[in-house]
């Protein structure tokens, strides 16, 4: 696909979907809605925030209630959105959402109405590191259409086009584009390097707990929770009721939460002399261990993949410089 054909493709998307794509703003790449093919900027630079909110919204109304009776939200048609230019790491995190929310009606409804246009093969992290995917590994990523840039960096860019879904093929036929490769999505699969890494990290966290590592991190971590917000795979949530002024009316919403926040593990019970409710994650060391254990032991146990796609967004936002790669290296060597 050449530039002209790409413009035609994006124009088609803009005409038929609400389209979101990475754009440069104040030297940061952020994801914003685009209104024309001209404003789309396909870039290999990793966006500052991930695409998480399109799959796991920051706040999702699950029910509204009137006279104290729950009414399920989402009966109305949800909007058709297209995510244009999703990099290979963020695509990986969608694999995890799909597994975690496989039986969630709210997630599934929006997922069906979301068109995913992947972009690669390269993605450049903020710290300059480069991640690349080989063509044969595309079958492990969830997308409708993938734009594979065959001369990334050159002026006149060309793309190999892959499609993995009926939805993707239909769109390509609507713009009369035939020169694409059909791919059969096989689901998550790591190469042998990542598979070994996943197993080693899980084994160490589960069977070789070194408290000192977490105590040291506990001394510097501020519990700000920025890593959890920036992380594309941190999906944990709380369910909160938001009452309205009318008695018995309001909404029940699912909102992002973070295991670094104090209320996360609090339970009802007698308050301590210091005024604290009983809780199960009692200190920073326990909280940061919980975060790492989730990514590198619990998610692998449940879904056979790591809860980390290696995007380094958590490193970028951490105010005290905790580096996930360095922490895991220490765990691996322990």
């Amino acid at each position, binding site marked *: 696909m050449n530039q002209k054909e790409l413009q035609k493709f994006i124009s088609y998307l803009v005409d038929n979907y609400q389209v979101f794509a990475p754009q440069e703003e104040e030297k940061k790449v952020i994801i914003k809605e685009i209104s024309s093919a001209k404003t789309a900027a396909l870039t290999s630079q990793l966006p500052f925030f991930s695409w998480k909110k399109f799959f796991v919204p920051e706040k999702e109304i699950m029910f509204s209630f009137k006279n104290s009776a729950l009414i399920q939200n989402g009966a109305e048609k949800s909007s058709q959105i297209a995510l244009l230019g999703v990099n290979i790491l963020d695509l990986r995190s969608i694999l995890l959402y799909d597994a975690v929310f496989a039986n969630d009606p709210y997630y599934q409804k929006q997922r069906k109405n979301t068109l995913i246009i992947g972009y690669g093969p390269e993605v450049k992290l903020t710290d300059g590191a480069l991640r690349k995917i080989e063509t044969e590994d595309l079958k492990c990523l969830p997308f409708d259409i993938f734009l594979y840039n065959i001369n990334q960096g050159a002026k006149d860019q060309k793309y190999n086009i892959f499609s993995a879904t009926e939805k993707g093929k239909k769109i390509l036929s609507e713009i009369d584009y035939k020169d694409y490769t059909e791919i059969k999505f096989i689901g998550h699969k790591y190469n042998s390097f990542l598979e070994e890494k996943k197993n080693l990290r899980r084994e160490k966290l589960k069977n070789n707990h070194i408290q000192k590592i977490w105590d040291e991190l506990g001394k510097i971590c501020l519990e700000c929770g920025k890593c959890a917000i920036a992380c594309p795979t941190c999906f*944990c*949530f709380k369910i909160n009721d938001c009452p309205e002024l009318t008695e018995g009316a309001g909404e029940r919403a699912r909102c992002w939460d973070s295991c670094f926040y104090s209320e996360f*593990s609090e339970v009802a019970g007698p308050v301590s002399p210091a005024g604290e409710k009983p809780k199960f994650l009692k200190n920073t060391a*326990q909280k940061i261990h919980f975060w790492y254990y989730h990514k590198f*032991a619990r998610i692998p146990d449940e879904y056979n993949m790591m809860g980390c796609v290696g995007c380094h967004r958590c490193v970028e936002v951490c105010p005290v410089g905790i580096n996930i790669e360095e922490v895991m290296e220490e765990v691996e060597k322990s």
Partner: protein
Amino acid sequence: MKNPYATQTAKLIKITNQAPNIKLFRFDLDKKLDFSPGQIIFLSIPGFGEAPFAPCNPLETDFLELCVRKVGKLTQILHKLKIGDSVGIRGPYGQGWPLFSHCESINGWTKQSQSISTKLPHDHNIRNNKIKNLMLVVGGLGLIPLRTLLWGKNKFLPNETKIQIFYGAKTPDDFLFKNDYAEWKEQGIDLKLTIDKECPGWNECVGVVTALFNKNMISPNAIAFLCGPPIMYKFVLEKLKEKNLPDENIYLSLERRMHCGIGVCQHCAIGSFYTCKDGPIFRYDKIKNIPNAI
């Protein structure tokens, strides 16, 4: 797709005082709730949220009973409700107490229960034929998730199983389900009580629940179910180890904050387990090496 967060309406039909700040609420349900003893349900009061509780009614009844202490936001409101008021219920969730599945007479019940609620993992069932007796070590509110099992003992346990209960509370007023004791004793249940401090008129054991271990023999070939505050577990486990009870013959109920009930939201995770889905009843050997599990 079925919404796992949807609730069914439960109408409050009876309220009984159990202990200071603790009431037993009886609800009428549109659809009978089939649960295994020890499983949990979520109670929802729109505007005030949801929280998990262990139902405690005898299983053959059509109603649902929850015994609840007034301790947080939701329970404050629950305690203010009147007969005829409604709440929402969803569940049941998780794994309850292990059933004596080597006993033919309850296999039918096990199968029926599995088709309705969650499956019991293979190793959650008791398969050791040597185990004959059941020892319950209970502190405070811990009797609640065991009441259904006690009322249904002829259904859940082999006839020859002896049940011994060591139950500790702060004061004589704090014991729950006092009206049930006479019938339980008649059925051969050996109930031993203890209170934390001396109290006028109290002639039984004084001291925390472990004091009962010093005064009573424990049944031979017993499996132990523990339910109470975490601090109790530490000392009771020591006692059980002194009596040479193997870790895999000890089950305990763990508490955590819960939001979803279906193993997604992460609040109740313990190691790679979820209290809502894999618990709240855990076999001790499965969790004993997980830091801060208890």
